[in-house]
């Protein structure tokens, strides 16, 4: 099984946010590396999407899609920096 990059998370994240989160900057809780969500190494599989830091491979974000809910686990991210529309 080969990983994709964070761009492939755009669909699931669109269910949660009205902005394109793949353009947001994360800061990895493991190593402090910061970059766009789109640059995460994505292990997308049927249980859920696991985005890992390309610098240290720690898990930054997990997205689990249940039939009636979406779970977003961001404990691997110190913060998420989202550009505002029109800025």
């Amino acid at each position, binding site marked *: 099984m080969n990983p994709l990059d964070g761009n492939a998370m755009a669909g699931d994240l669109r269910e949660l946010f009205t902005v394109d989160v793949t353009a947001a900057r994360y800061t990895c809780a493991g190593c402090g590396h910061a970059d766009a969500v789109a640059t995460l190494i994505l292990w997308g599989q049927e249980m859920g999407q*696991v985005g890992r830091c390309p610098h240290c491979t720690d898990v930054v974000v997990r997205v689990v899609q249940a039939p009636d809910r979406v779970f977003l686990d961001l404990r691997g991210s110190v913060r998420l920096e989202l550009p505002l529309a029109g800025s």
Partner: protein
Amino acid sequence: MGIISRGFGGRRRESIPGLPPGQYLTHDFPVLSAGPTPRIPLDRWSFTITTETGAKSSWNWTEFTALTSEDVTVDIHCVTKWSKLGSTWRGVSLDTLLAEVDTAADYTMVHSFGGYTTNVPLEDLLDSKAWIAYKFDGEDLEPEHGGPARMLIPHLYFWKSAKWVNGLTLMNEDEPGFWEAAGYHMYGDPWLEQRYQGD
């Protein structure tokens, strides 16, 4: 007067013995990975049980494979809805590994090479319900399926049967593991369809 034709809708899943609700049969062995597959040389492999007081019991590969092993044939059920019936494994029972461990804890966290974790109540590891398996279908367990050794807890959804297992921590309180923290069920009984939190 209408005639109701029962069974016209096809074969009902419930009619297959051993298949929990919402599952379908597969004869393949699908691989789900949440990260890169660790490659663990056998001379660097070990399995460690840590009690709630910090006491440790550890086995290297030679010691582990010298323990009494069992051949088991079990049905496995993945939360992504595939089930595989009659799969054959060889492994060491958790009863054997926990026999000399002194604990009053009720919960465990299973740990793997690569950082994966999953929580399982201690009683679900005892009484011939769980093994650390190192052979599948008569062959050494391949890395993509969790080799050198993986947990095998067939009565729970298969994410509880952690691949690349390297340890067990005994805990007084239940805590979520890797998938449980991200929304999956704390226990995961396939017969009750305990897939997500709140199910």
